[in-house]
Each structure stands twice: as C-alpha cells, then as structure tokens.
C-alpha cells in the first residue's frame, strides 16, 4: 500500500490536448519526458484516447496508466491527463479552466474553426494554465485576463455594433435557407 503515497509535488499535469472530431491534434502538450517521449507515441496515444472517448460522453477514463478527464463540444475534444494516483478533482479543475478559458476567448463559440482562427491566443492560454506540468492558474477569468489582449483593442461600443451585425447576418442567412427549402 505504501507505493500509493506519492512524493508531495506540484508537478500534477502530465499533458493537455485539444483534438478535432477526427481525433487529429489541434494542440497538445506533454510535460513528462518519461511518458510518450516521441511525437509518434504521443499521436498513437491520442488516437487511442479519441477512439475510446469520442462516443461515450463520460468525462473520465483510465488509459495507459494515466487518468484522463475530458470534455467535448460540437467538433472539439479537450483532454487533461495526470498520473493514475492523481486527485481526479484537481485534474477536473484544470480541464474546466482550459475549456472555460477557450470558451471565453472565442466568445462562447467553441468550435474548431474558431480555435484555428485564434490559435495564437489559445496557445498563450494553454501556456498560462500549466507551466511544465505545474498548474499555474486554474481560474478561467484570470487566465483570459492574462491573454485575451485583443478584446481590449475594440472599444465596448463598437463591440456591441459588431455583435449585432453578426446577429443580423445570421438572421439573413436563416431567411435565405427557409426560402430555398
């Protein structure tokens, strides 16, 4: 039983990944050189993980000796990996932070296209959440504050105008579709 009591350490997160709905990597980071040292092994693991998780909306799975927590939306899958002795709720808090930060950065439009359009900011966010396996920040709004720098280039007034324009456009498109049917 003694082996279960791991050395107290801040190194909690083994990896984080965002995959698309074919299981291809959009972004992934592994923090422990001892697991999956090459990118080939990493991608095999990701494929395997994706195959086991993309249909079952189950939130948590044990795979290859790692505890993986996950969450999905439309065509994106978010994963956080930790050792099998790790506190699952800590991993979950990291996952929620990752998801919520991305969601806030993309203004609730969590899908593949939007992530790719703001890839630089999403990269910065991942870097702010976890540094070399240590949880740096687990509060989404504070992470976004540290990275979402472009939002402040648009003054608030213009932002609302831009948003209502989008609403107008989508209404137009919907009308088009209903006419086409």
């Amino acid at each position: 039983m003694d082996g279960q009591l791991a050395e107290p350490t801040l190194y909690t997160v083994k990896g984080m990944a965002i995959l698309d709905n074919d299981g291809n990597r959009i972004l992934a980071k592994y923090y422990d050189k001892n697991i999956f040292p090459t990118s080939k092994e990493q991608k095999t693991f990701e494929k395997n993980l994706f195959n086991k998780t993309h249909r079952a909306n189950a939130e948590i799975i044990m795979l290859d000796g790692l505890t993986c927590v996950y969450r999905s939306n439309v065509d994106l899958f978010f994963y956080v990996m930790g050792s099998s002795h790790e506190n699952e709720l800590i991993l979950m808090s990291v996952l929620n932070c990752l998801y919520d930060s991305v969601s806030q950065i993309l203004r609730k439009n969590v899908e593949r296209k939007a992530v790719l359009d703001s890839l630089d900011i999403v990269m910065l966010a991942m870097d702010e959440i976890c540094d070399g396996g240590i949880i740096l920040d687990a509060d989404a709004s504070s992470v976004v504050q540290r990275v979402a720098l472009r939002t402040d280039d648009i003054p608030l007034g213009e932002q609302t105008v831009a948003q209502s324009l989008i609403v107008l456009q989508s209404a137009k498109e919907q009308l088009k579709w209903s006419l086409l049917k």
Partner: protein
Amino acid sequence: MNAFKRDKKEEEDGGGNPFQNLEKTTVLQEARTFNDTPVNPRKCAHILTKILYLLNQGEQLGTMEATEAFFAMTKLFQSRDVVLRRLVYLGIKELSSLAEDVIIVTSSLTKDMTGKEDLYRAAAIRALCTITDSGMLAAIERYMKQAIVDRSPAVSSAALVSSLHLTKVSGDVARRWANEAQEALNSNNVMVQYHALGVLYQARKADKHAVIKLVAKLMRTSPKSPYAACMLIRMACKLLDEVDKGEELLGFIETCLRHKSEMVVYEAAHALINLGRNCTKEITPAISVLQLFCGSQKPALRFAAVRTLNKVAMSHPTAVTACNLDLENLITDSNRSIATLAITTLLKTGAESSVDR
C-alpha cells in the same frame, strides 16, 4: 450565394484549416520577414503562430534551422505589440532546447522582467528561466528574489514555479530562495500560496524537522487555497509514514474531511485510506464520505470514490460493505470505467444476498 456554397464546401473539406498544408521549409523562409523594419506585428504574429503550430504537431527542426529561426525571432523584440511579444516568449521556450546560443536573449528578457508592464513581466520570467544555465543563475538571482515577493500574483507565481523548474539546473535554488517563498506563503492569492508551499517543501524536504515545523504551522492556520490544502495533506501523510506519533497530523487530515472544497475532502479521504493503517476506526469516516460521493452528479467524483473504495476493499472488505447498495447502483453507470470498478469492488465485498438483486 457563391460565398455560401464555398463555405459549405470548405466545411466538408474539414473546415478549411489555414494551417493544414504547411511546409516546414516555406514557413522558415517566411520567418525572414522578421528581419524587416519596421516590424509588421500582425503578419509576424501569424508566421510565428505557424512555426509554433508546426512544432506542436511534432515537426522536427534541425539545430541549424532552429538557430536561424531563433535569431530571426529575436528581431521581434523591437515591436511593442503585446500579442507578438508574448508569442516570442513562447517561441523562446519552444526553441530553447533545439537552438544554439539562446542566451543571446537574456538581456532583453531581463529588461522585460524588470519593466513596468505586468503582462510582460510574468511571461518574461518564465521564458528567462528556461534558457538559464547554472553559470547564468547568479546573474538573475537578485531579480528572481524580488519577483517572488512581487505584489502582482502573476509575477510572483511565475517566479516561484520557475524556481522549481530551476532545481534541475542547480539543486539548491529552492533553499537559497526559501526566505522569499516564506513571505509569498502569506499571499492572499490562492495560486501564489500553493506555489510558495511547493517551493518551501522542495527547500526543506531533506530536513525532517523543518518539514514538521512547516506543516505544524500551516495546520493551525489551514491554507485558504484548496490546492495548497491538498499539498499539505500529502505532506502530512509523508510525515505520518516517518514519525511514530502522529495524532495531531491524523487529526488534521480528519478535519479536512469537512472542508468546503470537494477536492480537499476527497484528498483527505484518499489519504486516510492509503495510509495503510490497520485501524478500521480511522477509515470509517473516510468511507462514509466516499459513500456520499458515489451518488454525486459528477462522473469524475463517482469515479474517484469508487476507485478508492476498490482499493480499500482489498484490505478492509467489511468496512466497505456499508457501501454495497451505492455500489450496486453504479453497476449500470453510463461510464464504463465506473461500472467496472463498482463490479470488481462488489466481488470483494458482496455476499450471497446481493446476487439476486
């Protein structure tokens, strides 16, 4: 109409990934734009994103290629664009292990880390520490000590986390900076408190008496940060393994069962069970907590609970019998891992009477 059709077509192709068919050589060629003056922030940020994306996809860069890209990137320090600067920090971290002579950016980073812009400072510290070797450590030591006690939580956390990484470069970094970490431990920010505790433990872990003192002091005030509380529980467990009398430590872990954060409650229950003590009295409260968690809405919590019960069922099957009904409910759980764990646990504790149900 045409635009509409094109959108749809793109969607079928896989959403039109702008990064899909990137060629390493082309992107590295594009990186020459970095040498232009004045710097075009948007364009350069996009190219840098492409390089970072390629690296993230597992693309291998030779030493020459990496060094060339790295040196081109250093030119971007001329720009004051925040996103671009932050991407440069990221680039420095990614390329630091591949490129040669990366210490060239030391002075630029030191300037940023001591500058006024908080958004630069934290990220600059983290980038600087990835390129620091044992020879350079003395040169940045003064700045690092200052950063640890900085009033900005981002800066303080960045410095604390970096000093833990630097332990690989020089073993006694944490010990030399322990006084500052001690001060950071009093921070109101939950993450700073957590990181400071990590550094302090790293500094003192070789000295059992120092750890006992640290734990005893923190147990009295009980850290505000749930992450720090989890870390403290782990430290207490480690001590319990080594010292003979540990009534106080054990008592502390038990009070954590009533913490307001589920994370800490679970950590405490998990700890009590894994201590490997043979006394049923100690694990009973932990088991009742886990029993409650079995009925939680959150799959992760149910998983955590049943996984721990599964373990304790091996040594104390009778203590787990109380949870049999809850475990039976989990057999049909939509998460297969939870269902499997519930079944194997029941196999250890179940009696004939439950087979019928």
